[in-house]
């Protein structure tokens, strides 16, 4: 029988290494992908993942399952770590700022033209979407990553981001409108709009 998160947390607090490894393997992929989508850089995502589980190791006794799922708790830590990295790189950041949000752009349905059976086209679509997501302001990006990529409910995302469900809903609407605009613009979302860290990782 698969041990529950609570059982694993108890075992971790008692010093059982295998419990820690089991829990790590259970959630490492999701935490890593969240960090990757938020930062655009695998090395940063590695570091964030490591920091998240180190924090869990330090504070395993402080996790209270009655206050939310463990994954939500982990996303909360990952988010703080990613935002710290993004803040550190802010001097180089040219990600979608407020002024850019309302600029009108020509309509072009790039994504719907992609053939889902064509691997190359799929890769292009995936790359375009990922770049468009990376170009979103962080507060919109994290909502898209959690709700659309990680398929969390609004309530779970609200827990992870420590805000209301209404905020999640409105940010997601706004984020998707921005995504649509950027994807319509096609080639407009490119490495030039990414920060130094992200450019380095995309090379």
């Amino acid at each position: 029988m698969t041990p529950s998160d609570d059982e694993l947390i108890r075992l971790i607090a008692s010093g059982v290494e295998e419990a820690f490894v089991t829990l790590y393997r259970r959630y490492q992929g999701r935490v890593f992908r969240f960090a990757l989508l938020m930062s655009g850089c695998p090395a940063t995502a590695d570091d964030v993942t490591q920091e998240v589980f180190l924090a869990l190791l330090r504070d395993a006794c402080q996790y209270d399952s009655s206050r939310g799922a463990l994954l939500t708790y982990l996303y909360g830590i990952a988010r703080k770590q990613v935002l710290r990295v993004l803040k550190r790189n802010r001097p180089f950041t040219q990600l979608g700022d407020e002024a850019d949000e309302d600029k009108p752009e020509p309509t072009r349905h790039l994504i719907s033209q992609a053939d889902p059976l064509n691997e190359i086209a799929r890769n292009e679509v995936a790359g375009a979407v990922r770049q468009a997501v990376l170009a979103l302001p962080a507060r919109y990006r994290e909502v898209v990553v959690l709700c659309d990529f990680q398929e969390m409910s609004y309530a779970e995302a609200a827990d992870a981001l420590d805000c209301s469900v209404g905020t999640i809903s409105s940010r997601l609407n706004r984020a998707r409108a921005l995504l649509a605009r950027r994807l319509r613009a096609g080639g407009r979302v490119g490495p030039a709009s990414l920060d130094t860290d992200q450019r380095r990782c995309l090379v």
Partner: protein
Amino acid sequence: MKCHEFEATIMSMARGQLVEAAARDTAGAHLDRCARCADAFEEQQAITAGIRVAAESLANQEPSPRVEEALRRAFRERAGRLAERRITPQPAENGRWSRRVIGAAAAAILLLALLAGADWLKSLPASQKQEATNLPATPSISAPGRKQDSQALAGRGRDQNRKTASNSAGPRRLSKSQGVRQNVENVNEVATRFYPLVDEGEMAPLESGMIVRVEAPASILISLGLPVTAESINRPVQADLLLGQDGLARAIRFLP
């Protein structure tokens, strides 16, 4: 249904979320009539599809193995530190233990001294025996278990040259009723202050006590943090043990 009313539903439908049948039908009817909303709906569906493709492309992405290795290492280090902390007594506990050991040693010495004292009393003639048992009482020592009493002890300690009535090697009975003021004038020995051998609160308050002159190894001075010279390390030291009403050693002081 107006366009802005439809916007709330469009997102849910485009994201493939469950929408109430009635709301879905109304929205469907609106899409048939409104080209702008139909375009927006199509666009959002395309975004959902694009996100799914992007998510699938990342599905197998995982942190590098070095992360798990680093975390395992961190776990072992932490577990090792915790285990070490459990095994090794903390400094405070260590001090308490050494005091307990000293207390036990002192109690053992006391027993021997009491036996020797009893033999000595037996060997005396009756008149001398009477004299010996009517020894003047030394100043009463407060229980080190009480704060104010500890302070009193420390106060006595500051008065390093306080003289005590201890001409005899035999035990002397002390009690509260006899009081501190008694017989201070009679003393003519120089002694250190009393060093408590037990922590505050570890024993019952001192109701009455007994001082016993003993010889102790010089190492006892070291364990109490007192200076010992190289020449005197092998010489026994003269000490007075303060025993409580329960017979347990409470404090000790040293004579030159």
